[in-house]
């Protein structure tokens, strides 16, 4: 039985993957500018929203959220989530080729495990067919 998705849906999963990675990286960059936030001064987290890096991260993460929610309308949560994990691999490649960071053998092994994990679900069905779903299709 074929489980192939249309190209547009793979493109949406690609946006989910990139959005999570880029958004987290921008937030991390911004919060290092802000510095440590004490639990007694949580209001300073709202001040962080004025930081351009944090603001850019939020904009990217809103795009990620829209893609993610659309994907969840036609796929299982346990199918979509590994796509977001691929974002960690993207982050490592950004570090390697753009920031010229040293990637240890352990990190390469981590990348291999994530890619294998995503491969397990990518070839499977994207959605669990419940009895109610099947009845709706028949009707």
């Amino acid at each position, binding site marked *: 039985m074929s489980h192939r998705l249309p190209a547009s849906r793979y493109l949406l999963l690609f946006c989910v993957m990139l959005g999570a990675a880029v958004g987290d*990286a921008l937030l991390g960059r911004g919060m290092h500018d*802000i510095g440590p936030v004490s639990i007694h001064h949580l209001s300073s987290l709202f001040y962080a929203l004025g930081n351009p890096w*944090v603001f850019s991260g939020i904009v990217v993460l809103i795009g990620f959220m829209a893609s993610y929610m659309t994907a969840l309308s036609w796929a299982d*949560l346990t199918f979509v989530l590994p796509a977001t994990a691929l974002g*960690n691999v993207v982050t490592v490649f950004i570090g390697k080729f753009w920031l010229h960071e040293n990637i240890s053998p352990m990190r390469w092994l981590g990348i291999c495990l994530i890619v294998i994990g995503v491969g397990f679900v990518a070839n499977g069905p994207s959605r*669990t067919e419940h009895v109610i779903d099947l009845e709706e299709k028949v009707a």
Partner: protein
Amino acid sequence: MVIPYSTLHTWTTIAAVVVTATAGDISIARSMRSLDLDAIRAKSGLGGAILAVVTKPTLIFGIFCMALSFFSLLSSLSGADLSLVAPATASLTSVTTALAAKVFLKENVDRRRWLAAVFVCAGVALLAR
């Protein structure tokens, strides 16, 4: 043995991120699953589809949980490196969400998906080293 405040703060906020992100994921997935977006778009256009999505109570609860998760993440990032926080939250959330999807969404989390969750969890943990 006394645990340093910074370590306690980091892992408390990481736990908060994991719990709220899992609750948010499950609520959002449940609300999105109950909508037939293609049919709504065909009938009411993109605006109608957006309105149908943003007025779902379970989705609003899910977004609220995600907002809590976001501020927990910010708090965590303020005291710890992204290279620790992002992989730790992502790997723990992948396992808790798979469990929650099986229990609350009745998803068919078969052997292949469990293996995927375990491989992703181990891979993300290795990325943090």
